[in-house]
């Protein structure tokens, strides 16, 4: 190469210079091309990082809940072992508060004081006592959730220097908070209620359990409907259906269905399942059936692709030794296509898990304060719960919305991880 470049002949060197320029241009074009690709990936990763950072930084406080420890005196004469639910718990709670911060007698001040602990405090005390009647006759230290405003104060979301009429905690409350803190009565442990409580009007009590159970039921219904139907449809279309105008039409329609806006499926679910069939509103059953409509095209398309990717030689080999068409498909093609089909199904379900619009239309955004008992009981789902919380005015719901998004993303990541694991595990068999 270098020898020829040194060639003294003028014409030859001119031609070579030309060739070298071309080579340089080609290398430059290649570098540019690689750079653009890299820049695109960096941009995408950057956006993802910003997104995750925003969600996590605004959501992580919700994983901790401020609690106020009160010494609850359960020696009250109205308490009876026989019927622990029937007692004046409001008075028991007030007494406990007064005992923790002695010297407050003014009714207005007492109301302020009461507002520092969650409004459901008397019921929480009652539930504890009903669960464990042996507590009666003793003085018990209970850590009760602080109200949203004190929770925000503890987390530093409220600026103490702002004028009192422009913040939601009063000067009195701040002073009492500091006294309680000095007494060691304030703590902020992990907020297990976020996972194991159902929804509530009070952010300090609101949790995702109802939504998680609702989403689980809906996904189960969705899976048991869409997986068998989707796989059967894919096998028929790919392996048995004659290739004619009708199957072409069906194929085009399935591909188009995958692109239909999800809210349209919601309208369909509302009109067909609820109006025509009279199935219950807000139920995971209807949610799952609607989501199944959405997951079906994804599953069918992924399953057909999986079937198509099985080498035809396997089919031929089976037919060659005298297997019937159905035996060739069941014994040889399907096992090889199964990992791809499962992956498709799980990705379809993951999409369904994150789908909000159709669930709004069938009423799964209702305010429901207990987890559903079955697939026909009214319920919310994770994405609709996020929607409800995002719409709520209380400060505490801001971080809880982000926390719920983190939980939802966590479930999605888990499902995708399962899909990858299954594919890897089933594929290495041979």
């Amino acid at each position: 190469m270098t020898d020829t470049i040194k060639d003294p002949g003028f014409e030859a060197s001119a031609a070579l210079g030309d060739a070298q320029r071309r080579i340089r241009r080609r290398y430059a074009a290649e570098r540019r091309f690689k750079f653009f690709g890299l820049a695109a990936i960096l941009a995408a990763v950057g956006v993802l990082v910003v997104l995750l950072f925003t969600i996590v930084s605004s959501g992580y406080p919700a994983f901790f809940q401020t609690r106020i420890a009160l010494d609850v005196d359960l020696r009250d004469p109205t308490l009876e072992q026989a019927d622990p639910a029937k007692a004046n718990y409001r008075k028991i709670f007030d007494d406990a508060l007064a005992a923790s911060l002695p010297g407050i007698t003014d009714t207005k001040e007492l109301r302020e004081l009461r507002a520092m602990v969650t409004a459901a405090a008397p019921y929480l005390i009652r539930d504890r006592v009903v669960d464990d009647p042996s507590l009666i006759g003793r003085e018990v230290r209970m850590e009760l959730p602080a109200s949203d405003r004190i929770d925000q104060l503890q987390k530093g979301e409220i600026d103490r220097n702002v004028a009192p009429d422009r913040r939601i905690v009063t000067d009195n409350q701040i002073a009492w908070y500091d006294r309680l803190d000095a007494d060691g009565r304030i703590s902020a442990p992990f907020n297990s209620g976020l996972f194991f409580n159902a929804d509530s009007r009070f952010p300090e009590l609101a949790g995702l359990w109802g939504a998680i159970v609702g989403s689980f039921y809906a996904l189960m219904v969705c899976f048991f409907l869409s997986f068998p139907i989707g796989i059967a449809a894919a096998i028929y279309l790919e392996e048995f259906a004659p290739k004619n105008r009708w199957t072409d039409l069906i194929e085009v329609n399935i591909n188009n269905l995958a692109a239909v806006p999800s809210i349209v499926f919601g309208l369909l679910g509302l009109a067909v399942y609820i109006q025509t069939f009279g199935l219950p509103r807000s139920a995971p059953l209807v949610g799952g059936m609607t989501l199944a409509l959405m997951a079906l095209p994804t599953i069918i398309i992924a399953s057909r692709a999986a079937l198509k990717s099985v080498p035809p030689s396997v089919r031929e080999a089976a037919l060659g030794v005298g297997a019937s068409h159905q035996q060739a498909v069941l014994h040889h093609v399907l096992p090889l296509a199964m990992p791809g089909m499962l992956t498709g199904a799980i990705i379809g379900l993951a999409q369904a898990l994150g789908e909000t619009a159709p669930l709004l239309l069938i009423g799964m955004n209702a305010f429901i304060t207990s987890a559903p008992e079955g697939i026909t009981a009214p319920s919310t789902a994770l994405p609709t719960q996020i929607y409800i919380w995002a719409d709520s005015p209380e400060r505490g719901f801001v971080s809880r919305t982000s926390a719920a998004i983190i939980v939802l993303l966590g479930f999605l990541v888990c499902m995708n991880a399962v899909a990858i694991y299954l594919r890897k595990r089933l594929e290495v068999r041979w």
Partner: protein
Amino acid sequence: MNLQESGRDAASADAGHTAAPAALADTRTVKIECRDVNVYYGEAHALKGVDLDIYENEVTAFIGPSGCGKSTFLRCLNRMNDTIDTCRVKGSINLDGVDVYNRAVDVVQLRAKVGMVFQKPNPFPKSIYDNIAYGPRIHGQARTKADLDEIVLTSLEKAGLLDEVHDRLDQPGTGLSSGQQQRLCIARAIAVSPEVILMDEPCSALDPIATARIEELIDELRGNYTIVIVTHNMQQAARVSQRTAFFHLGNLIEVDETEQVFTSPKNEHTQGYITGRYG
């Protein structure tokens, strides 16, 4: 248009040639008798009026340039063409006097009787044992586990593979070398005790040594089976076959004893092909 016409001329000119050796060979039994076989892929006329007899316990080789219809014809013999939607077959192919395209013929039974070995070794992604046991299992040919073991071992033995794999029958068949894989495929075909074995360029993906092993095997198998082999390799056809059929543009140009075809072909197309003028 021109080519087609010349092809048709050649075919009609050929009728006389095919008749003569058939008359000579009356001591042999005809296993498959094909009369006026036409194959269409949609509008395309892939095979034009083929008349051919395939004799029992002989190796018949199909040679010809690419796209001449030899593989198509081979696939008619066990109806593998059924899987192609646009494919239509006309004419009669009588296996032991029964038309394989007769409605009464069950295609699964037919393929058990007429086994097939493909161009690329295609063992199932299962163990060596299961590869061979699959056919007998679905046809219910083994009543006990011992019967099945027996079938697997004798099939491997016949395919000359037993010594190489006897200690790893539970290993995946796809882990063997390609030559071994092809012999595994032959063993798999033998396992359902077919009468005819069709081989579609069985050595085209193999190296010369593996090819030699397969050719030896074909020669050994000839005693018990009727073998039809499609090949692009004329030396191979000359080495393994007793009769050779030359196809060109969908026509059967010439069929005769292999020696006859290769030493004194009657047709100028055949002459041109085997001397390497085209193909």
